[in-house]
């Protein structure tokens, strides 16, 4: 396995009497992009600050390259000089764009020529070379964040920390910068810890995803694992499984379990036994709907539930349809199919989905 550059062990951070972070174990592997996702206030940024040695944990150890970190000024400075961070606010200094990007190199006492030689390519890489001599105060939000990113990358750190770097940007600016960052990260192969509350950013950039909920790391996995097999109900909700319903296993048929949910039964892949309680999670984009009167044509969809449309909410490119199938079942359909099907609230529909689209979570303490 790839060695871990950074690791935290039994780390607790308390503010006053409130524990904001409690992590048993989490490592950052060399060369990976580890995204830390979670809701606002979940403790993601605190975890980042602890990893970046910008905050001393109340208890526990942080290790860098296998050795526990000693919180002494000289040691911290030496280790911090092998890292770099970008935060949500660009936090630029009152000097030129060049001066900002050069800041960390100057802290390290590099001669002016060397600073110039190293800064230029990164100005180019982030598309800010033509504004090198402009005052940082005159930059737009996107330009300022590009400067902040260049300022971190120019240090060629062993570990790079990005704390919601796109959080304050408007969507078009964010998209442009996200694509640039993705390619820079791929090329430079720098070990990165990326904090975000945005699922798509986590999916796009992360080699692994750590989900933080209420100060605890609840799941660490490859992005598609976290998204297709969330460990808990909260993670399932966070990753977009809008339909989460309790069910009980009725019987087993080979690989499949027949589970009673709402007014009907569905088949799912699980090794659960009859009588077991489960949570059935389903993403709205995996649900197909048709009028109940039209006979089912699809053969690949083994699960079909009848229900009545409770609500239709157009969400731009997709339309959200909430169906009462004995429980609330949510589907996303395209605007086109919404028009083609002439769906209206109160109508009877058949909601179908594949057995593989369903993720089940075993309920603890259940029989």
């Amino acid at each position, binding site marked *: 396995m790839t060695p871990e550059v950074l690791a935290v062990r039994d780390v607790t951070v308390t503010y006053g009497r409130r524990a904001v972070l409690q992590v048993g174990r989490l490592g950052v592997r060399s060369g990976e992009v580890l995204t830390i996702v979670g809701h606002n206030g979940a403790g993601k940024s605190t975890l980042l*600050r602890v990893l*970046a040695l*910008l905050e001393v944990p109340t208890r526990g150890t942080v290790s860098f390259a296998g050795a526990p970190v000693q919180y002494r*000024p000289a040691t911290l*400075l030496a280790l*911090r*000089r092998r*890292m*770099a*961070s970008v*935060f949500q*606010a660009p*936090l630029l*200094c*009152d000097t030129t764009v060049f001066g900002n990007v050069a*800041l*960390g190199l100057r*802290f*390290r006492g590099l001669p002016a020529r060397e600073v110039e030689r190293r800064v230029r390519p990164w100005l180019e890489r982030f598309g800010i070379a033509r504004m090198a001599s402009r*005052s940082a105060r005159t930059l737009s939000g996107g330009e300022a964040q590009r400067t902040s990113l260049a*300022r*971190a990358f120019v*240090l060629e750190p062993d570990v790079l*920390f990005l704390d919601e770097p796109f959080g304050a940007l408007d969507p078009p600016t964010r998209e442009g910068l996200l694509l640039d960052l993705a390619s820079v990260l791929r090329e430079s192969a720098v070990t990165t810890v990326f904090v975000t509350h945005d699922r798509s950013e986590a999916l796009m950039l992360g080699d692994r995803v750590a989900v933080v909920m209420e100060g605890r790391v609840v799941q660490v996995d490859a992005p598609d694992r976290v998204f297709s097999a969330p460990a808990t109900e909260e993670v399932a909700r966070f990753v977009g499984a809008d339909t989460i319903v309790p069910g009980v296993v009725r019987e087993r048929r080979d690989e499949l379990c027949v589970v009673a949910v709402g007014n009907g039964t569905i088949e799912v892949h699980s090794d659960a036994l009859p009588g077991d309680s489960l949570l059935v999670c389903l993403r709205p984009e995996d649900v197909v709907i048709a009028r109940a009167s039209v006979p089912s044509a699809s053969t690949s969809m083994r699960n079909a539930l009848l229900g009545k449309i409770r609500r239709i909410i157009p969400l731009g490119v997709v339309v959200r349809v909430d169906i009462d199938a004995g429980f609330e079942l949510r589907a996303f359909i395209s605007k086109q199919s919404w028009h083609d099907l002439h769906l209206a609230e109160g109508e009877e529909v058949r909601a179908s989905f594949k057995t593989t689209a369903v993720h089940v979570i075993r309920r603890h303490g259940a029989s």
Partner: protein
Amino acid sequence: MELIWQGTVQAFWLILRGDPEVMRIMWLSLSVSGIATMLSLLLGIPIGTAIGLTRFPARSLMLSLVNTGMGLPPVVVGLFVSIFLWRSGPLGFLHLLYTPSAIVIAQFILAFPVVTGLTVAAMQQLDPRLRMQLQSLGASRSQVLWQLLREARLAMLAAVMGAFGSVISEIGASMMVGGNILGYTRVLTTATVLETAKGNFDVAIALSVILLSITFVINWALTAMQQRGAHR
């Protein structure tokens, strides 16, 4: 009106002629207030930075004291410095009373809280997250402090202007601890008072014009520096 006009003409005449007495008074005012301002910057900036950037138990008490000190009446300072420097006072052995050094001490006491208070304000208006950002870029403790002071430099110039302005124009302390001795401790403000009392309004106005001009030129230079920084 006539009086003001005559005084103004007289002022220019005194300056142009390079009247030795006026020049000496002007020079003393500038050097005494300049040194007092420098000393207050040397001590006030580090202390103001410390109060502005750290949290400690007596912080708000200290800040209240500093803010009170910003409005310290010069005569009160003059009184206490006189008592301390009095021949039989605790610092009487230094024989400083009625010397330019005594004025420097009194003006330093007046300027120090101004510099400290404005430095605290300058530090507090910085984004508190900037410190962490600088640390994360590998800045040492002193590099962080230096960078923060650089960030606050425009507001810091206000501290310089505020301190110098308050001491060059004060009279109570200079009068009491300096004694307005001709050719030795007479400064622009004390000379103005004396000339007014003697009924020499033209000379008094001339001295006032000089005082105003000095204050204006220095503030103009500092403001130009500040605004050039602001518009870069």
